């Protein structure tokens, strides 16, 4: 918690507890009449007290408390995985909290379904639009309403709302023909038609152009001025500073701070979001590195589809013994970069990617493996491994050439089993053995297996994406140690992760990917946490100049 004036703080404390003290002896003891208490209650639109949600292996929300006032634009700020989405899903009735209470306009409520949430006056605009491509705007909006309205009446109503809030859209157009910004407008109109008193916006600007963001902000300010509360989820600090009057900052499923963004800077909020309790880098003694083993020059690839990110002149060098970290908020080109590096997407030129002096830009994954470039993609079940294959078969898939258990198209089953057994033993994978199906392993164990499979091939270059995503702490530490050991043997390693703690603990060199561009690589001990937070939040070049200005990602 940041520091607040004493009086204000104690007053807030009282208000926080009002719902529980209304009518109780405590309330009377405080000398507050019931009427006054209710008036004060009504001045809070939504209050969460100690809301907790646990998923297998992870505590997504840990005793979260927050209040939203009428007409307030309240930011919910945090990195990916901080628990923002889980929290709003509980407010909107998609998931049920394990414990804790939700108080809506002074009354404790259980919100069992999105329908119940809408009935209360809670609307939500999703990050991934729940729209139906083959239908037109009116049909889509009708689906979001609980009652039955005639098509023409709805058409008129939609036009009315759009006029009022300055939203432009033809209600009779088919969704498939609309831009991303227009699609979002449908979601907003759909939510507004229900006259919500709380509107939840889940990362609304992640797919908008800067112009569209400006339009959206105008609409939101207008709504707030009419008394609608807005819960605005984002990790873009400058937007929150520009728009919100209050912010609750989540980290690792907990509220770590609340503040008034208008009195903060993006820098100070970035610090709160990332946390000041970061571990010191465990390594960071660069300069002992060997020769360049991986060299990428001007890697440029167009967007793979409407929602993808184009890679823009990415260049990097990784030396033997070096761990090169790439940080960044999800969806800034990480997936595209991994695909381009491991060979799933070919580069335009053979010389674009060079491994140990060998140009591999035009080679597929198998060719690159032969050249010494191995990779572990983010998605372990379905991408790194096939769930319905045994571990031995999964080992064969990537290790057959380098480990020599394929000759002229025939597979040496015993060799594959022996290799899989070695991976299981060396990496302490908890499983029944090489004949177990990959899909039967827990996330952490499968991750250890796929990491071990690549590491034991002694690759010259290893590219790993989100090596410890969703993995328990013990396995994560094991995987980190294995990467450090591999580097110590002279391999070059690229780690792409959204977990800054991990990167700071692991890497020698750090760079940030934003909108498909890679910032200049810097030794990890020269980068401050604040700087990183800003770069990840979308403001490049505070102390690390890169050419071109950077805005919110455009569609």
């Amino acid at each position, binding site marked *: 918690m940041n520091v607040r004036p004493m009086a204000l703080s104690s007053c807030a404390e009282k208000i926080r507890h009002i719902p529980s003290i209304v009518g109780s002896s405590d309330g009377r003891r405080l000398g507050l009449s019931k009427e006054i208490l209710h008036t004060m209650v009504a001045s809070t639109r939504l209050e969460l007290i100690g809301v907790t949600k646990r998923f297998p292996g992870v505590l997504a929300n840990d005793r979260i408390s927050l209040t939203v006032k009428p007409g307030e634009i309240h930011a919910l700020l945090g990195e990916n995985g901080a628990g923002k989405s889980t929290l709003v*899903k509980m407010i909107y*009735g998609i998931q049920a909290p394990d414990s804790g209470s939700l108080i809506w306009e002074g009354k404790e409520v259980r919100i069992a379904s*999105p329908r119940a949430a809408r009935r209360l006056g809670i609307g939500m605009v999703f990050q991934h639009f729940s729209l*139906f*491509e083959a*239908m037109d705007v009116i*049909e889509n909006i009708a*689906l979001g309403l609980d009652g039955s309205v005639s098509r023409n009446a709805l058409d008129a109503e939609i036009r009315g709302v759009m006029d009022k809030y300055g939203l432009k859209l033809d209600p009779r157009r088919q969704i498939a023909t609309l831009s991303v910004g227009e699609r979002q407008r449908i979601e907003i109109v759909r939510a507004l038609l229900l006259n919500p008193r709380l509107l939840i916006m889940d990362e609304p600007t992640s797919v908008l152009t800067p112009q569209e963001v400006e339009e959206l902000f105008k609409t939101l300010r207008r709504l707030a001025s009419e008394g609608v509360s807005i819960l605005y989820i984002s990790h873009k600090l400058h937007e929150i500073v520009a728009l919100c009057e209050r912010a609750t900052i989540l980290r690792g499923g907990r509220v770590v701070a609340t503040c008034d963004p208008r009195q903060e800077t993006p820098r100070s909020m970035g610090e709160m979001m990332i946390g000041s309790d970061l571990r010191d880098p465990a390594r960071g003694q660069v300069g002992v590195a060997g020769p360049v083993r991986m060299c990428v020059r001007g890697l440029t690839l167009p967007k793979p589809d409407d929602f993808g990110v184009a890679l823009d002149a990415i260049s990097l060098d990784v030396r033997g013994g070096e761990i090169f970290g790439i940080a960044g908020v999800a969806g800034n080109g990480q997936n595209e970069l991994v695909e381009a590096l491991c060979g799933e997407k070919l580069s335009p030129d053979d010389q674009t990617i060079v491994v140990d002096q060998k140009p591999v830009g035009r080679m597929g994954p198998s060719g690159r493996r032969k050249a010494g470039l191995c990779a572990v993609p983010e998605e372990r079940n379905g991408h790194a491994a096939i769930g319905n294959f045994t571990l031995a078969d999964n080992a064969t898939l990537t290790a057959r050439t380098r480990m020599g258990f394929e000759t002229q198209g025939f597979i040496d089953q015993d060799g594959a089993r022996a290799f899989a057994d070695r991976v299981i033993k060396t990496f302490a994978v908890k499983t029944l053995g090489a004949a177990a199906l990959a899909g039967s392993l827990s996330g952490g164990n499968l991750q250890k297996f796929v990491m071990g499979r690549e590491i034991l091939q002694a690759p010259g270059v290893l590219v790993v994406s989100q090596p410890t995503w969703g993995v328990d702490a013990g396995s994560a530490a094991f995987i980190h140690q294995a990467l450090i050991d591999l580097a110590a043997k002279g391999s070059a390693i690229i780690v792409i992760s959204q977990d800054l703690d991990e990167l700071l603990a692991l890497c020698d060199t750090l760079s940030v990917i934003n909108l498909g561009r890679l910032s200049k690589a810097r030794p990890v001990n020269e980068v401050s946490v604040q700087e990183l937070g800003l770069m990840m939040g979308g403001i490049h070049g505070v102390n690390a100049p890169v050419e071109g200005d950077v805005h919110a990602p455009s569609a």
Partner: protein
Amino acid sequence: MSMTFIIDALVTVIGITTPILLAASGELVVEKSGVINLGVEGMMLVGAIAGFAVTFETGNPWLGIVIAMLAGAASSLIFGVLVLSLGANQVATGLALTIFGIGLSSLIGSNYVGIANDPLDSPFPDDLAKDAFWRIIFGHSPFVYMAVLLVLAIGYFLNKTRAGLVLRAVGENDFSAHSIGYPVIAIRYAAIAFGGAASGLAGADFSMVISPLWAEQMTAGRGWIALALVVFAGWRAGRLLAGSYFFGVLMALELYAKASGFAIFPSQFWAAMPYLIAVIVLAIISSRDGKGGKAPACLGKPFIPNG
């Protein structure tokens, strides 16, 4: 003479089209909800034997029709449980349902082979159909009228009602429908049961009108034509109606070629025609982008809600 021939031919076409139209109408609803049930043939057979047996035992054809529909719906719910609740593969399960339907109907029907019922007559007074021309309108079995009304009602339901909109939404994007708060699985169960009932009704048409007796596998692959017809019609009720009569003409050609000894092509050629045309038309439709009617986006994909 030739006028009578044309009228006879039309009555034949309408008669043999009806079971296909019934089954395809049901399958249209199923597929619009995002489920593909390849068990139409099996459900038709179950309906055929149920309708025949009940009519024979009770002498009440209307009871036979109701039981045929219930039997079709019940067999479709086996598919429903496997596919919706247990997440089984829809194509494999549908094929299994067909095989199951063939076997079950043969088992139940073994006691009924060689017996005939009276065919179910037109529900209208005979006088109305006396004139050859009016026979085209009033001279059919009740199934014909049910089929036409059914497909029109489905067209109206899908395009004009809110429930139809929700059903289409579930087929178009199940996760979105779920996140808005619609019960995806329950809606699909209802659609599957409806499709099963329609298939059962189609089967009963075979065993109660077209040839009012029981013979093993008497539906002779028409369930597959019904499946193709749904695609052929681009998942639209209006085209389904037109398309089914088009197929009916092709199937009637086979009968007439056989009967007249028309020798330019062997009758097997005419028998193969509907299938051949189906392939060609499907190829044309799928190569023509956009307008040609699109499959529901979630067709055949299992839905496993993730909270």
